[in-house]
């Protein structure tokens, strides 16, 4: 909220600097986001009266003005603006003046004629139309009314205030008002708050003769107060009121509208004024909208309303949407003779629903959503009527209409001072707490350790019952000063903190991946149907069961990812186009599957993406094997895998017999969709499933005491024979010696090998536990291996 210093001074004795107030408010829980001095940049600009003017002898668009700036002799100023005239009051920037944007003014000669300053437009003074009428037009700002030449322009415009922009927390709706904020500011400054006294205007006659109010839904409208004013004298509001409204960013309109706005700012309660002549029989009916009803609001828009929406109506038609905006048909105009001032309480949740269905919100609606209270509704109404009377804006009619279902009685709550001291770890006597509460106008009495508190009507945030202890603790703490509560370390129970197993495993996994040279990515969790389509994911595939957002940023971010691939591909494409020189990445993140009626299944996945020179299917597979070895586990890969992989170059990864992921070369069509023009390899693993197969802590095996000998053999087999099949045969061969270090070191096709066949070269080592092998033993073992390969795979030994 915006709090002008001039307004604050009405209620609080001002004896500090703005910076000191900002600091003191901060310690009370009010954050001042900024302090603005109006027209801060402007200096040396005064009111000038154009005494006379003539055409410039060397120009057909320049005017030479003699300007009275209150110094006896008029000064000569040349201007190019055509809207000046003799007798006009204008802003005159004199020698050394500073204007908006840091521009400074010096005497100059324009086409042979001396100009001792500059006449200013609103824009050159940093003003907009909202600040002063005419400030938005192209041309010199012409001041209204009577002004004394020579007066500082900021004072003349009433733009010399200091405005505090305060960010309020949602619990303090009462401070969304000058009165509420001044109450807190006074306490923060150690001052007495000069509570405004409203003089109730008795008025003549009876409101009942002009108007009556029926509330048909008191749940949505717990209180409706109204007063009638006749013989309206619609006119601009006085300068002091306009000045304050401008300071808080409101545009003055006329005295009646300005009064409602003024009271909104001062008391924080939204009001509305109806043209009573447009309300049939003067009968206000507060009811839910009918089916298919339409209300034309003040802004001229036709708005269809639903039966959930609360309307202000007369017996025939809607005259406003409750709490949001008045109707065009009952708007105050120059011809309005009598008005009904409405000050009501509408239920915030209903107003919220209304603004949602209208897709439109207003300042008034925002107040109702934050919460208003019934006692303040009446105060605001009486204040508005007082202003009507004070401004001579009309004749106030006697009696206040009040349809009230709300409880407006005073609440008394009890709080336990000992408990509050335990919450804060303080030793504040109950009596001192009562005094502290008194300083923010909360009347409290200490009876032993019990605080008996009369809760002011505006402090709806202070609850009754057990919770009062915490509410009062908060008040006591911020008045006592958070900085006065000495920090200490916790006592009592001791704990051994632990990083859980899943977290530790994830750390270890990430470390192993980084040790393999991969960079870790973090991508957003959002994706879209087009990305899933580009990944060639078939209809009905699990990855199509994406969780949909009801309010996404856009179609392309409307789904929660079911695979890490789209985000990683986006990032890879970005890296390739920027030539960042590194294309080996991993990401560990959650994916969601909309596959059950409760919460979607959340799966933590690991994605690995390699691209560029030196990378292929087997570097990716080897990397995964290496990482798995860190967890004492082995993987096996069988043909298979998703449609985003190239056929024949993809596989399903198994651990402990369970499928835990897949890997492969990305399909050219997928690469094309992401404009990736080099081969790229991707693996995705289910982290939870994978690590469920991690090996136990290994038991030490004694180191061999006798030397091993290395041998290798090359065999020619059918193309259909897989490396795994060959390895299985070698591993399972019944030998009398120990076989270790089996490795496929070459696969060869081509010259010397018949078509449809391939050569596999295997190396291995042989040893015995208890002696050094003799040549004979070695030869027997190799021969046994060869026989097994011949028998099982129809392999031939390559010559």
């Amino acid at each position: 909220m915006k709090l002008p210093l001039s307004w604050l001074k009405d209620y609080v004795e001002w004896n500090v600097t703005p910076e000191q107030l900002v600091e003191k408010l901060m310690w009370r829980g009010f954050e001042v986001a900024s302090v603005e001095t109006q027209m801060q940049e402007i200096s040396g600009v005064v009111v000038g009266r154009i005494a006379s003017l003539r055409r410039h002898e060397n120009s057909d668009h320049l005017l030479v003005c003699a300007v009275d700036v209150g110094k006896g002799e008029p000064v000569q100023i040349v201007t190019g603006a055509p809207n000046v005239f003799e007798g006009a009051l204008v802003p005159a920037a004199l020698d050394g003046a500073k204007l908006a944007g840091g521009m400074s003014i010096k005497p100059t000669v324009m086409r042979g004629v001396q100009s001792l300053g500059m006449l200013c437009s609103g824009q050159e003074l940093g003003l907009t139309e909202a600040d002063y009428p005419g400030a938005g037009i192209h041309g010199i700002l012409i001041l209204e009314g009577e002004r004394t030449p020579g007066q500082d322009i900021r004072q003349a415009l009433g733009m010399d205030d200091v405005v505090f922009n305060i960010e309020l927390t949602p619990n303090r709706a009462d401070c969304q008002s000058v009165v509420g904020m001044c109450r807190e500011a006074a306490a923060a400054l150690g001052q007495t708050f000069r509570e405004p006294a409203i003089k109730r205007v008795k008025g003549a006659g009876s409101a009942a003769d002009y108007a009556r109010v029926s509330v048909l839904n008191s749940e949505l409208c717990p209180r409706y107060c109204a007063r009638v004013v006749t013989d309206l004298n619609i006119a601009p509001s006085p300068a002091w009121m306009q000045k304050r409204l401008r300071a808080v960013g409101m545009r003055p309109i006329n005295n009646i509208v300005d009064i409602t706005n003024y009271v909104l700012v001062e008391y924080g309660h939204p009001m509305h004024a109806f043209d009573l002549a447009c309300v049939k029989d003067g009968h206000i009916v507060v009811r839910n909208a009918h089916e298919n009803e339409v209300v034309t609001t003040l802004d001229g828009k036709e708005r269809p309303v639903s039966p959930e929406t609360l309307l202000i109506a007369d017996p025939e038609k809607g005259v406003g949407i409750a709490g949001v905006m008045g109707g065009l048909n009952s708007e105050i105009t120059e011809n309005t003779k009598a008005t009904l001032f409405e000050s009501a309480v509408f239920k915030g949740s209903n107003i919220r629903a209304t603004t949602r269905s209208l897709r439109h919100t207003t300042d008034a609606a925002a107040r109702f959503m934050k919460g208003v209270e019934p006692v303040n509704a009446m105060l605001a109404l009486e204040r508005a009527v007082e202003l009507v009377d004070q401004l001579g804006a009309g004749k106030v009619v006697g009696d206040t209409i009040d349809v009230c279902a709300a409880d407006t009685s005073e609440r008394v709550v009890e709080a336990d001072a000992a408990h509050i001291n335990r919450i804060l770890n303080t030793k504040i006597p109950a009596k001192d707490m009562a005094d502290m509460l008194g300083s923010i106008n909360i009347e409290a009495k200490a009876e032993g350790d019990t605080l008996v508190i009369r809760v002011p009507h505006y402090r709806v945030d202070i609850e009754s019952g057990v919770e009062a202890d915490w509410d009062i603790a908060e008040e006591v703490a911020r008045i006592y000063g958070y900085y006065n509560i000495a920090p200490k370390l916790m006592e009592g129970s001791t704990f051994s903190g632990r990083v859980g197993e899943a977290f530790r495993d994830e750390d270890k996994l990430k470390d192993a991946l980084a040790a393999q040279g991969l960079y870790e990515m973090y991508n957003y969790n959002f994706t879209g149907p087009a990305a899933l389509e580009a990944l060639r994911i078939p209809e009905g595939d699990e990855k199509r069961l994406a969780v949909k957002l009801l309010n996404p940023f856009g179609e392309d971010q409307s789904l929660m990812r079911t695979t890490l691939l789209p985000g990683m591909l986006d990032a890879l494409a970005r890296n390739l186009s920027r030539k960042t020189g590194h294309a080996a990445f991993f990401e560990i993140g959650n994916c969601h599957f909309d596959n059950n009626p409760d919460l979607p299944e959340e799966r933590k996945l690991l994605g690995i993406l390699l691209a560029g020179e030196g990378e292929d299917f087997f570097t990716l597979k080897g990397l995964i094997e290496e990482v798995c070895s860190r967890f004492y586990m082995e993987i096996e890969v069988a043909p298979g895998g998703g449609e985003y992989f190239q056929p024949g170059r993809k596989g399903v990864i198994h651990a402990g017999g369970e499928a835990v992921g897949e890997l492969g070369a990305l399909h050219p069509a997928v690469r094309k969709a992401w404009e990736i023009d080099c081969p790229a390899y991707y693996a995705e693993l289910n982290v939870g499933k994978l690590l469920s197969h991690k090996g136990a802590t290994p038991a030490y095996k004694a180191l061999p005491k006798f030397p091993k000998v290395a041998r290798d053999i090359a065999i020619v087999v059918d193309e259909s024979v897989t490396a795994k099949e060959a390895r299985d045969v070698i591993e399972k061969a019944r030998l009398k010696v120990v076989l270790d270090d089996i490795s496929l070191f070459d696969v060869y096709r081509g010259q010397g090998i018949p078509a449809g066949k391939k050569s596999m070269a295997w190396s291995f080592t042989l040893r015995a536990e208890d002696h050094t092998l003799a040549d004979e033993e070695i030869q027997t073992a190799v021969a046994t291996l060869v026989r097994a390969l011949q028998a099982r795979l129809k392999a031939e030994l390559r010559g």
Partner: protein
Amino acid sequence: MYDKLNEIREETLRRLNEAGDEKELEALGVSVLGRSGALTEILRGMGKLEKDERAKFGQTANLVKKELEDAISLRREKIAAAMQEKRFALEALDVTEPGVRKRPMGRLHPMTQTYRTIRDALVGMGFTTFDGPEVEYDEYNFTKLNLPKDHPARDMQDTFYVSERVVLRTHTSPCEARALLALEPPFRLVIPGRVFRVDEADASHSPVFMQMEGLVIDRNISLADLKGTIDAFVHAVFGEEVKTRFRPSYFPFTEPSAEVDISCTMCGGCGCRVCKGTGWLEIMGCGITNPHELENCGLDPREWSAFAFGLGVDRVASLRYGITHNRLQYENDARFLGQF
């Protein structure tokens, strides 16, 4: 003969210094001490002497032989040392040439590194890790935390909805409710995780970010305990010299509540661009757990008391590494990732 012996000795010692390499030295040794060397010859001619004379001369000749042998071997060591020095000079490297990185290390994302630092600081203070789902019931994300439907404070966090009752969690706090319902107090938890808000990405906002929550429940937990814990934690993460400031604030799930500022890590509190001249950086929200939250989770707030705090890992990472734009953390440019 004595003269001859002396002559050989002197001649040899002289030539010894002239021998430039191993080979010359070898030749000199052979010419003096070899089978037909000068000294050997003399010793051989000794037989012609009288017995007494022979013994005396023999003694002297052996002394000379020993002296020459020692001198040769000393010279050999010197030559070897000189040779080695020469070789070293030839093999000398320009050590400023770049190292050869055969297996370059990868990199963990700055957020991961920061998360671990924060987590480990808290684990050292007796906190244990806890986890919960990213797609969460409205009930846990809001209602249980004292944010019933239409509570004005729901506007503080713009929410992505999946359905009327399911949301993308807007904070890690729903895990508080899950923990309070599932675990027996007392306990201390640290809860990291991704959270989501309807915020367009800009320098300091992101629709997805990582949060870390701390929750302590015990008997007689006070605001002083909260302050002490956060002070200790801030010192562990940001350094002992960093100061904290607790400002009163409001969160629906805590009361009393506070915003925690730390003295600016860029300028040390003098005021700079990062802290907008204030000398302070807002780092987290915290407070004494609201009694409604404890009641909603089946605990008696008169018996149990708790505090909680939450901070953005992205933000801490940005401060730690001086990252100027939050978007960089999700762009995954290798030139960015490679810096940490």
